[in-house]
């Protein structure tokens, strides 16, 4: 899965979109990792005020509310996903994870240049990079602009283009706030990697300014 890689948007938009992903390898270090993963959730709970979204490999059908950090510290997690909007806060979290030396593979998904700087600032040498070389083939089938940006925040494509358009109509009709619409879209993303903060801002741009 490369579900956090191809997030579309301008560099300015992407400055508020970082995903931290930690996972065990079923071939190497999954056995006996349950407690370690719970300890990682405990570290993440130190940043609860900074988290935009989060989840593990179980469905996140309530847009992040189904899981609270206390429950996750007791759950069995093979994968941990956490979304930050602030570069300094993901840096602080990554620094603490490094210092605790849990031995679990850790991936930062976000602006390449900023990720490199974050790693340098906390003394980490990046190991492997996955580059996005864009979208090819029949690209005329894709929607443009903000709709595509919101859609690609769930790499499994669970947030339908039509649903985003539907939410825009509901907001314009005064039936829903941008915040509520962002939350409703987020529910579709199992993994908890949907950036509700950024989605709300994009919905505000797409509508006549009904943000609640």
């Amino acid at each position, binding site marked *: 899965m490369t579900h956090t890689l191809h997030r579309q948007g301008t560099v300015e938009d992407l400055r508020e979109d970082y995903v931290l992903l930690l996972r065990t390898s079923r071939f190497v270090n999954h056995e006996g990792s349950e407690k370690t993963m719970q300890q990682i959730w405990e570290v993440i709970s130190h940043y609860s005020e900074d988290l935009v979204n989060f989840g593990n490999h179980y469905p996140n059908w309530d847009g992040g509310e189904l899981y609270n950090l206390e429950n996750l510290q007791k759950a069995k997690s093979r994968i941990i996903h956490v979304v930050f909007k602030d570069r300094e806060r993901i840096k602080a979290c990554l620094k603490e994870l490094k210092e605790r030396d849990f031995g679990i593979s850790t991936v930062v998904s976000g602006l390449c240049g900023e990720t490199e700087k974050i790693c340098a600032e906390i003394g980490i040498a990046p190991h492997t990079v*996955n580059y*996005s*070389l864009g979208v090819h*083939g029949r690209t005329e089938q894709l929607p443009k602009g903000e709709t595509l940006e919101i859609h690609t925040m769930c790499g499994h494509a669970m947030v339908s283009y*039509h649903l985003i358009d539907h939410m825009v109509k509901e907001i314009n009709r005064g039936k829903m706030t941008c915040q509520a619409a962002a939350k409703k879209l987020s529910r579709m993303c199992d993994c908890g990697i949907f950036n509700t903060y950024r989605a709300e801002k994009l919905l505000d741009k797409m509508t006549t300014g009904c943000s609640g």
Partner: protein
Amino acid sequence: MLIDKEKCIGCDECHPYCPVGAIAAVEWEGRSVSEIDQPGCVECGCCYKRSDVCPVDAIYMPKLEWPRSIREYFSNPHVTHPSTTGHGRGTEEMKTNDVTGRFTRGFAGVAIEMGRPGVGTSMRDMQTVAMAIAKLGVEFEPNNPVAELMSDPKTGKFDERVLDERVLSAILELKIPLVRLKEVLAAVKEVSTKIETAFSLDLISRVDADGSTPVLTIAKEAGFTPRPNTKTNVGLGRPLFREA
């Protein structure tokens, strides 16, 4: 997915949840009800439990027989893929590369994420791309669930029975020596004009001691412009894989 027309009240609330636009209103026994186009449906479950949108529980999942079941395995990230026992379309790829050593220095990883973002793909298009790449003599990742759908991985030919199946996305993954990267990317570019869908393209590389990667120059020479965002494995996994 199917809709029980007896139960459906024709509210159309489920229509926008379908990523591939397969739900539409039809006339049935003198009233309007919703129907899911079966050739188009990718069995992702978005209209079902994930959204829980139907007010009368008219949407249901019938037991899917192979090869239709392939649609659900690839399209619904909550479903465990029988061949990998994991969720989703892919593998651990570079996410655990610090401990698995799957991509070592001198090699690049290429992933062609067919149907992404959000347009879906047929297995026929998957085969078209796979066969174009296979001509170069490269090997596909055997742990990717696509591998079991190929009748001949050496030629990229798929089992005839799966060619008309549609999924939201599936990934052709390969690892190649750096010296072959440019020709593989050229083949990807050429075949992109011969398919009915879109794909997202990934390029994986080990980071050198000076922080650079050897693949960027090659990608640019092949006519690709990397996007500004990446995924970076920061090397905190243990035990660290030791390269020879």
